[in-house]
Structures are given as structure tokens and as C-alpha cells.
């Protein structure tokens, strides 16, 4: 069977082409300029224009109804659209975060741009994929540049270690993914998701079920679900802070969107013991994310563990989607992820803004007395942290309200109660930075000025978090139109 490719299919690829073309401009310029960087601001501007164009083109390609393209390997539906818009938005934020950041070295700025855009392309592929092989390509296209991006910056050992660790373990996860795909193909004779879903005969086969589980393990590794989380704190700590922000927001978002896409496959498991296992994964993730951070002093590590805890909450929504009302759950998961993305980017923006020049780290003690010297940023940081903790009236509370509702709707009461209790435990470490900023005095001067770009990102994120109580309803209405036409 030869896939039929139409002009309409190709038109879907316009954002890809735009992003690719703009990603090669800075690096080609460097080559033509005798291996010296072009003006940094020029490169920044090129990247920004590329991202905005991609955003505009994606925005115009509205989804009337879901359709398949490229012989069924690519799907274009509401989830793809939301995912694409989100990742381009994330990339714009990350671009702002990386501006003037010491870990992004000036003589490699164009390489940085190119790798970041490649990661973005990988995320696009993930959003589009309706095929397990396609998703594998997406994950690899997303991960390979990230391995380099983690190690490229700084110059200290910790980032090289992080890069190497992520590379080795990531390859391991890729092997799992491929093995899973192979088993699924062996049973179903296809890797196309909608074909598998429709084939009720296949889903009973043990080979298929084993394949799916192994495939899922690969995905769980990427979103750092406990017990596949061990790499995350080290990698998040070692990576340059803007890249950490990119991983915590973008990578998680697209992989969870993809998991949502294959949720109908997971519904086979509702009768199985496998389902109980998923519940335990979620419980453990919430617990470890909340408990392990209690004694950390490095801020990036704290937020890394918090990101594990949040993975647990999102996964609770995924379980609800498998078990209960898919439509209700998808609102919960998508809304949670979008609000979470804003909170994380904002938090990493603050960390990146204040981290020390020498070792690119920020410890709790460094924050002491910050509120007196940088009152506005301290207030923004507090709002973001309280939001991560899920204290109303911040956005994090509404995200939690949504995800808890979806779980209650699926009768997952124990998960919800556990989630509520772990969120209280985590409050302790979210409050610690606030305590240090507001309630201690210190003579250490932490006044590095890193320009306006990061501040813009912080202010925008904080503003959106504060008003997100009013954004929930429009968001649900928009999702309603997009996802269930």
C-alpha cells in the first residue's frame, strides 16, 4: 500500500517548514560569516519572528473536524492544534528565558537556536503522530537535541554529567519504546493507533498487551513517573535553567498529550490488574515528589521534585480518563497541563534570573532577604510557588480542582485523598523559599541584572496564573469546540 499524499496534507506541514527554515538562518549566517556569531539580537529576532509565524500559521489552520493525513500516520485534530499552539508558546517563553542567560554561551548561540528549534519540531511530530513509529520518531527528534542542549552550556561538570545521564537512560527508554512497537506490530500487523483501537481481536492477545506495556514504560520514563523518575532531579539540576524549563514544560506536555491519544488503548486494562498498577504509579509519584523535596536546599532540585509530584497529579487525570468519563477527564488533564506549564516556566524564569554566575545554582539561602531588594520579582515568585502548591486563588488551585473533579468523577476517591494529602506535605517546601525571601534578612547581594526578557516572561506567567480563575470557563468552552466537534 502506498500512502496517498495530497496538497492538503502538505499544507499541514507549513509550520514545520517555517520552523526549519528559520532554525537554519542563524547557523548558516555563522558559517558564511567565517564561523563567528552574527549579532545576538539579530539571531534572537530571527527566532522570534519564526516562532510567531509558526504560531500564526498554526492558529489559522483551525480544526473543523479531525482528519488523517499521509496515509493515516498523521492526525490533525483539536488535541494536535492545542498541543502545537502550546509548544510554540512555550518555545517563545524559553527564548525569552535564554536571552542573556549565562549558561547559554554567546559563541554558541546559533547552535543553541538550531537545537531548540529541532526539539520543537520533534514536539510537533509528537502532536501530529497517529502511529507508534511516528511517535518514536517524534520522541527521538525531541530528545537528541535535548541531550546536546543539556551539555552544551555552562562548562561545569554537573551539566555534562546530566547530559550523559539523560542520554544513557534516554537511550534505554528508546529501546523500550522500539521493542514495544515491535511487539505491537507483531500482534496487530499495524502500528496505526486508530486501526489498533478498532481491532478488538488484537487487543485480547498477550503479545499485544505486553508490547503496549513496554511501549508505555518508555513514555513513563520520559515524563518521569515513579519508578522511572531517578534521572530527573540530576538532569534538571545540571541542565541550563532555560532548558530545564523547556523539558519540564514542553516535553511533559507533548508526551501527556500523546498518552491521552492512546488512552482508548488503555481502556483494555480496566478489567486487568495492570490498572491497579497504574494507580500505584500515581500514588508513588505523588508521594515521592512531595516527600523527597522536603530536605533539598537547591531550588532547581526542589522544583524538579515538584515536577515529579505534578506528573503524579496529571497521571491521576489519565487514569480517570481510562476508567471513567473520557471527555470530562480530557478537560481536566489539558487544563492542568496548561496551567502547570505556565507555573513551571515562571518558576524556572525566576530561578534563572537569580542563579549565581559561578556555578549556575540557586540555593535556598541565596534567597534570603530578596523581598527587600527585588520586591516585585519576589512577589511574583511567591505567587508562582503558592500556585504550584495549589493554594487558592492562584491558578494551581483551579488546575487541582479540575483534576480532582475528573478523578472523583471516575470514583478514584483514594487517589484524590492521597493527592490532597501529599499536596499539603509539599506546601512545606513551597513555603520555604517564601520564608527565606520575606522573613530573613541577609547581606549577600544578589543583584545580577539579566535584562528585561526574563522579567517579561515572569510577569506574563504570573499575570496569567493570577487571572486563571477566569480563564477556566473560556478554556473549557474552547476545548469543547476543538476536541469534540
Amino acid at each position, binding site marked *: 500500500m502506498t500512502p496517498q499524499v495530497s496538497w492538503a496534507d502538505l499544507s499541514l506541514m507549513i509550520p514545520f517548514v517555517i520552523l526549519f527554515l528559520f532554525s537554519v538562518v542563524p547557523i548558516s549566517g555563522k558559517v558564511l560569516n567565517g564561523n563567528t556569531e552574527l549579532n545576538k539580537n539579530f539571531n534572537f529576532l530571527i527566532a522570534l519572528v519564526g516562532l510567531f509565524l509558526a504560531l500564526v500559521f498554526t492558529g489559522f489552520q483551525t480544526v473543523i473536524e479531525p482528519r488523517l493525513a499521509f496515509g493515516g500516520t498523521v492526525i490533525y485534530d483539536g488535541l494536535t492544534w492545542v498541543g502545537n499552539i502550546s509548544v510554540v508558546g512555550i518555545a517563545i517563553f524559553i527564548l525569552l528565558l535564554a536571552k542573556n542567560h549565562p549558561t547559554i554561551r554567546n559563541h554558541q548561540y546559533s547552535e543553541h537556536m538550531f537545537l531548540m528549534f529541532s526539539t520543537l519540531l520533534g514536539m510537533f511530530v509528537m502532536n501530529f503522530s497517529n502511529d507508534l513509529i511516528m511517535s518514536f520518531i517524534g520522541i527521538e527528534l525531541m530528545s537528541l537535541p535535548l541531550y546536546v542542549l543539556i551539555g552544551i552550556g555552562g562548562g561545569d561538570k554537573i551539566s555534562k554529567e546530566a547530559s550523559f545521564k539523560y542520554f544513557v537512560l534516554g537511550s534505554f527508554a528508546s529501546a523500550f519504546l522500539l521493542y514495544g512497537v515491535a511487539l505491537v506490530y507483531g500482534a496487530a500487523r499495524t502500528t496505526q493507533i486508530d486501526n489498533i483501537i478498532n481491532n478488538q481481536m488484537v487487543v485480547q492477545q498477550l503479545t499485544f498487551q505486553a508490547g503496549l506495556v513496554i511501549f508505555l514504560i518508555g513514555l513513563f520514563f520520559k515524563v518521569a513517573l515513579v519508578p522511572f523518575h531517578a534521572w530527573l532531579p540530576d538532569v534538571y539540576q545540571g541542565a541550563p535553567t532555560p532548558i530545564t524549563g523547556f523539558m519540564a514544560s514542553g516535553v511533559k506536555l507533548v508526551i501527556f498529550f500523546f498518552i491521552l491519544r492512546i488512552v482508548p488503548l488503555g481502556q483494555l486494562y480496566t478489567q486487568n490488574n495492570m490498572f491497579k498498577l497504574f494507580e500505584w504509579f500515581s500514588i508513588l509519584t505523588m508521594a515521592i515528589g512531595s516527600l523527597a523535596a522536603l530536605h533539598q536546599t537547591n531550588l532547581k532540585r526542589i522544583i524538579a521534585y515538584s515536577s515529579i509530584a505534578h506528573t503524579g497529579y496529571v497521571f491521576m487525570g489519565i487514569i480517570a480518563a481510562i476508567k471513567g468519563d473520557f471527555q470530562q477527564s480530557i*478537560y481536566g488533564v489539558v487544563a492542568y497541563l496548561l496551567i502547570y506549564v505556565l507555573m513551571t516556566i515562571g518558576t524556572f524564569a525566576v530561578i534563572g534570573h537569580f542563579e549565581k554566575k559561578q556555578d549556575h545554582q540557586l540555593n535556598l539561602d541565596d534567597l534570603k532577604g530578596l523581598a527587600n531588594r527585588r520586591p516585585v520579582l519576589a512577589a511574583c515568585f511567591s505567587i508562582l510557588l*503558592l500556585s504550584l502548591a495549589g*493554594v*487558592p*486563588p492562584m491558578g494551581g*488551585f483551579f488546575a*487541582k*480542582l479540575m483534576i*480532582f*473533579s475528573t478523578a*472523583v*468523577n471516575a470514583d478514584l*476517591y483514594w487517589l*484524590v*485523598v492521597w493527592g*490532597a*494529602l501529599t*499536596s*499539603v506535605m509539599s*506546601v*512545606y517546601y513551597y*513555603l520555604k523559599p517564601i*520564608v527565606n525571601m*520575606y*522573613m530573613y534578612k541577609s547581606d549577600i547581594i544578589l543583584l545580577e541584572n539579566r535584562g528585561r526578557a526574563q522579567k517579561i516572561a515572569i510577569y506574563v506567567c504570573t499575570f496569567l496564573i493570577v487571572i486563571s*480563575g477566569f480563564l*477556566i*470557563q473560556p478554556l*473549557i*468552552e474552547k476545548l469543547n469546540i476543538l476536541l469534540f466537534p
Partner: protein
Amino acid sequence: MIGQHILSALIFFPAVAGMALFFVPRGRVRLVAFTLSLIEFFLSFEILTQFDKSSSALQLAEKIPWIPAFGIEYFVAIDGISLWLVFLTTALVPITILGSWRVISNNVRNFHVNVFFLQFAMLGTFLSMDAILFYVFFEASLIPMYLMIGIWGGSRRIYATLKFFIFTMAGSVLMLVSIIALMFMARDQFGAMTSNLVELYKLNVPFVNSFLFNPQNLMFFAFSIAFAIKVPMFPFHTWLPDAHVEAPTPGSVILAGIMLKMGTYGFLRMVFPLFPEASAYWTWLFMLLGVVGIIYGALVAMVQPDIKKLVAYSSVSHMGYVMIGLFSFNYYGVTGAIYQMLNHGVSTGALFLLVGMIYERTHNREIGKYGGLALAMPTYAIVFLIITLSSIAVPGTNGFVGEFFILMGAFLKNRFMGSAAVFGVILGAVYMLWMVKKVFFGKPGELVKGEEDESYNPLLPDMSPREFAVMVPLLILVFWMGLFPNHFLSWSRASIDNYVESKGSYTLEFKKQDYVSQLRGTK
């Protein structure tokens, strides 16, 4: 315009005022804040002109859909139960601001912003009639209080403030889960999700008498623990003494005067109407804990060397009265409990202000180091004594009316509990009068003594006119509420009658007729 949206105006004015303070010149912050809080206080009188005291309905209601997908609304209304708590909130804040004129010397602007946001959250809690809206305000009030204790507090402030925040939050997250469960229960029973309390009251929450883990019991405890921590009821009271001792004077005044009432108000507004069977079933437990709290709080207060800690433990004891009043479920008990909430706000708030005044002078609160203070500060001693008498419920003061009603209600409900609670009255007199004796009478203590014989510490001048002005409204209230309780209770009577007779069957009255037609179907 304001006339129709008086409740929203009342809730949001402090938030706007808090924002406005950022644009006030540094030297004027206190004065502007005080003026704004007075405006808010006078604004609250607009309620009295519109409030119909013969009606038991929820009045002046305002209702706007917020998140219709979940049935969450912005829904505020007032009735006789919340009326005086709103007044307490708007009245105590100007008094607090005036009382903190000297105490707060650093970060003055942020302090007043905090106070206003706290007032915003507290008024929202007392006025909202939507469960999620209530929860948002209830939790949001933690943040300014957390900052207030943490930034302007004493030496162990960070421990105290973290404990305060985490204790309170730990209680309320399970309440959130229960609210969500109730919303889905409403979907199953009425066909649409809603968090509107008036609708939720009509829910039939399954209750199985002999089975401990039935839905109503579980939800009842989830709500009750959230509010019991806030009250605080024995054995959940341990955060309170820490928080009070470390909090700055204004923080203590607001915490004891208003925030604790959010807990008891929660019992009234949410727990009893939502879970009538479970509340009736577990009355014995809460009565018992209330009585234990009264006696325990009094006994522990007796041995405190620190004045502020003594007052803090007396709060535990006093809030125990409110709890047994509420759980006696009869007219006397509930009336007494509501009255006692106001009394406690007035007299304990006043006590914390008074303690703050001598702490400002000597930076010491140890009872043993005082003595003979009455000669050094005669006016202060008189005021202190009057407030003490109000706190131990001497007839003629406000405390008497509340405690009398509560004991009567408790006695009607359960003779044993009623009798046991009476012991608390005696113990209350013991620890308060002991403290007064040790601090004000007898030989001058080491802090009160001056350099030479027959002289007093020059750091202990008598009350300044400002300090006296802070106390005057409270003193007036002590006698006014004590001698003419009907001036206050007549406004609440219809609501309490209705509340006791038919729990939770509320009618709604919007101010304007067209509102009703707009929102038909909500009764």
C-alpha cells in the same frame, strides 16, 4: 449602584484599597489605610438600611455564573447569622490599624496591604454562598496571615507561621475533596453539577446509622476537621498558642477576633445544613470535645507565665463554649454561640491590644516580672479590668449574655455537659483574675519598679490618647452588648429561628425584582 451591589462592594473595596496603598506616598500610608478602613466600616452600615430583619431569607443576594461547566457561581448573600460577623470584620480592622500605629515600624506599606487583603478574604468567606467560592476565600485568607506572622512576628515566627499554614491547609484539603464529591452528588441527584450552597442543602447525602464509613460521615468529618482546626477545637488547637505568641499585636487581634470565627461560622453555614444526620449523630463527640476544650484551655491558661499565651489559651476555652452552643442545636445555644463569637472578637481582640500596649513599652510579657502596674498606669489598669470582666462574663458585660445563652442551650440538650461547662466559668475567672492580681496589684515587680523607691519605671507611661481611642469603641461595645443584647440579636432572630427549626431550607431574596426574573429557577 452601590446600593444594589452592596455585598460585592463590601468584599472588593478592601482589595481595591490594598492595591491603592501601593500608590500612596510613604509617610501617609498609615493615615490613608486608616481612612480607607473607616470608609469600609461606614459602607457596611448600608447593609443595615437594606436588611429586612423580619425575614429569615438570604438577602441582598448577588449571583453571577463563574465556571458554569462545574456549576460554580459567584454567589454572595447575607442573613442574620453572618450579618454581625461582617460588622465585626469591618469594625475590628480600623481598630487594628489604629492599634498597630507604633508596633509596626518596618515594611509599613506591605503590612497594611496585607491587612486589607486579609479583610477581603474574610469578608468573602462570611458572605459567599457558593462552596467553591467559600473555599477559595477561606484558603486565600491564609496567605496574608502567614505573611503577617512571618514578617512582623517574634523570634520563633517562622516555626509558628509554617505550623499555622500547614495545619490549616491540612484540614481544608479534605474539605475540598468533599466539596467536589458533593458537586458530583448534585449532578447525580439534580442533573447538573453545582456548588451553590442553597442547592447543596437539598442534597440527600447517604447516611447509614450503624456503618461508620458511610458517605455522610466521611464528608462530615472532612468538613468538621477543617473547621475544628480553624476554631481551634481541642485536640486540634496546638497551632494557636504558637501563632498567637509569635504574631504581632494586630495579627493576634485579627486572628483571634475574626479568623477563628471562620471556623465556627463554617460549622453553622456548611456542616449542619449539609450533613444533618451525621451532625446529630456525632453531637456527643463534639459536645465532649467542646467541654474538654473549655476545661483544658482554662487549666493550661492558669499555668502560663506569658500573658499573651494565657490569652491565647483562654481563646481555646472560649471557643469551646461556642462549639457546645452550636452543637446544642436549639435556639438558645445557637443564639448564644453567635453572640459569643462577637463577644470573643471584642473582648479577646481588646485583650490582645492591651497586652500589645505593655509589650510595646517593656518588650516583655512575663507575668512574674510585673506587679503593681495599677499605680504606674491607672487608666490602663481600669480598661484592662473592664475587659477582663467582660472576658470572664460578669453580668452587665457582653460575655455574660453569650455564655448564659450557651449554658442554657447546652443544659437543655444534655444536663451533664451543661453542668460540666459551668465549671469552665469558674476556672475562667480564676486564671484571668489571678493574672490581673499578679500584674496590676501587689508589690511593684522588677519591670515596674523605678530606680528609686516610690517611683515607677519611666518606660511605663499611662495610655496615650491614641491608645485610649483604640479602646473606647471596644469598651462601649462591651457595655452596649452586655446591657442591650436585643439591639443586636433582634436582627438575627428570624434567621436563627428558621435555622434551628428547618436546617437549610433557605429562601433567596434578591434586592431587585428583575434579578429574580433573570435568575428564575433558583427560587
